[in-house]
């Protein structure tokens, strides 16, 4: 990913939501428990 996208705020806001949601769901055991 280019340097532009790494600092482009709308895209980074979206990534913030995705990363935190994924972390939360994994930590809660909702994702990843088989």
């Amino acid at each position: 990913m280019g340097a532009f996208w790494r600092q482009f705020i709308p895209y980074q806001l979206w990534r913030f939501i995705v990363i935190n949601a994924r972390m939360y769901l994994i930590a809660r055991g909702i994702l990843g428990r088989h």
Partner: protein
Amino acid sequence: MKPQVVILGAGFAGHTAALHLSARARGIADIHVVAPANRFTWFPSLIWVGTGTMSEDLCRFELAPVYERLGVIYHNGRAVELHPDSGTVIVRTESGQDAAIDYDYCVNATGPHLNFEGTPGLGPRAGTTLSVCTIEHAMQTRDEYLQIVTGLARGSRRRLVIGIGHPAATCEGAAFEYLMNVDADLRRRGVRDRAELVWLTNEPEAGDFGVDGIEARKRGMIATGASLVRMLLDERGIKHVMAAGVTKVEPGKAFYEQAGADPSAVEFDFAMLIPQFRGIPIKYIADDGRDISSEMTQANGFMNVDADYTPKAYGQYAASDWPAIYRSPRYDRLYAAGIAFAPPHPLSKPKKSPNGVTIQATVPRTGMASGIMGKTVALNIIDQIEGRPPSHHARMSEIPAACIASMGNSFWNGSAASIIMMPVARDFQRFPGYGRDLDLCELDVGLAGAWTKRALHSAFMWKLQGHPGWQLIPE
């Protein structure tokens, strides 16, 4: 009399265990915590203290008021002896007096002993290299770093070596974060062009981080930590020395052995090198007065639990080697969690220098993994108190780890690598191919990571102080 649960240590594992026991078992057990210095430290942010971008006061809080509020009995001191037959721990207070505390259940969560003496000449005490492993170390590192910055601002050229100070050390992620934060800070101050940055690490390759590397599936392709870290180092003009084990340090010079190369040395004006971690030196004493420490711990001083410690070569490591419930195989009321338990083996590929020195990054036990272990142990103790066998398990080969590696602490210009591994230790039976669920793994760089790192700091400082709603924030 209620069962006495004694937790040794108030780091991620010990303090998390205390929180969960206070919430779920206060009515059925007395909960004690033994820890020195009456403070909790949020270690992930010490890299920011070390560059002067965060005050040390934001990374710590006093334990005693928190424990008083939660109904936990706090003992300010450190465990020096454990008598597992009689269920007694000897605690030495700051004034040097010893006191005995009897326990029905004990959790060893004493964290690491920073083994600077394992590398001759290493460490702040020797006056050669610095560390960010404690608040005091990070503050000293910040002061020395700011002096270097002053010299750079006056036009001097300086070489800063950052990395790992022992062939078998761990915590490469923290050292890498510090490196990236120094780079970002020097750029912000406009002096980066006069500083030469060197990444000196025992990892077999870039992006290993002591967990045998990281991969994630992105738009159908596999992204690797190795390619990401190499790109970040190249982008920033940072030199790197991989698969290198520091064997000796003299003022201004670090000597190292390297796989596939002759022994070498690097000179420095400033060096932050993480030491090897060993178990906290606690004596284990049997009923007959015999010192059984060597039977209770591995050679590195970490406590044996329900892991498979049969020596194995890399490639024969199995997911089932990792402990499930973190209980001593010899004493069923004694547990170890977090850094204090002995891992069955490292995860990274070992390398050897031409002189026969084994260079192998050892296993990091990050805050998330340690917290999960602390909670698991707490729940298993409750099981035992209520007459059930321990039913909760959290092998490193089945738990996730999220790691946000900061590369600059700024709301607008910051950056961080967001890394999620599931599981930490590869399980090739469950996940053929890479040993991990690549659809859950994450590898991303950007401003979102910087926000996440800062948000996690605030969220966990809230949670760990036991404020309302702390249970909503998972480990």
